[in-house]
């Protein structure tokens, strides 16, 4: 399991690249905010940047890119449940029968 000095340095360089990428993307996200775009574009662009950051973090810091298939199965099941349940919530919110109203 021990790694050589060369492998060690190579891994450090890799993580350093990911770090600078994440910092750069954070700056991009803040920059998009200061453009004062219409709300929907603001949300889509900023969350898009956040998604890219999350992907980099999961793939390289959490080494999902080299993980076993079982981990992918666990995560895919999780994502299916999350999307399904958010979908159910939004369906309930937007799918009111005629004459219905939300109580706040």
């Amino acid at each position, binding site marked *: 399991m021990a790694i050589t000095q060369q492998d060690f340095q190579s891994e450090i360089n890799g993580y350093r690249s990911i770090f600078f990428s994440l910092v750069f993307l954070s700056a991009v996200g*803040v920059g998009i905010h200061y453009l004062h775009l219409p709300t929907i574009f603001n949300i889509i662009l900023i*969350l898009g940047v956040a998604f890219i950051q999350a992907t980099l973090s999961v793939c390289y810091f959490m080494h999902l890119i080299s993980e076993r298939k079982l981990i992918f199965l666990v995560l895919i099941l999780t994502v299916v449940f999350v999307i399904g349940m958010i979908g159910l*919530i939004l369906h309930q919110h937007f799918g009111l029968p005629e004459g219905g109203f939300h109580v706040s």
Partner: protein
Amino acid sequence: MEGIPYTVESRQDTGLYNAKLGIWLFLSSEVMLFAALFSSYIILRIGAESWPVGASILNVPLGALNTLILISSSVTMILAWVSLKAKNFAGFKKNLGFTILLTLCFLGIKAYEYSAKFHHDLYPGTNNFMAIYFTLTGIHALHIIGGLIVNTYNFSLGSKMWQTEPERFTNRIEVSGLYWHFVDLVWLFLFPVLYLT
């Protein structure tokens, strides 16, 4: 009694040591928790007649600084694990020490932000935005504190395992790191959702 099996060697059926599968299952449950909280945010926001721009109430530069702090702590956390893989215990101590320091900085800034809100009479009960802000960041902060406790243990008393079972200790740090990266990942969504949109 024998030691706990598969703390170092992989199981034949899963191809993983037990703690790694265990932490991923735990993180899946955490995804469900935060998905429920983000769903609450979505419902509150789309159902509101008006919703404040986060930057008009929250401090974007401080939030951005906290983002930078957490990203840095993620890097030092993984460097701590890589140091152990390279049998560099001093490097592990240095990097995990930096992780703990950065965590304390994050919590300090968060405490300052909270106190500033209270000073301006902004409490969880003030409006829906403040309620979801305090709920989301508060639960996230509790996760940060949990990770801080684990990392501090691994830095101090727990590090004695390096003398007797170095490979098991390395795996323990890897698993702790996976949790820490997840907590950082949640903030990567929290910051833009609350502060920037």
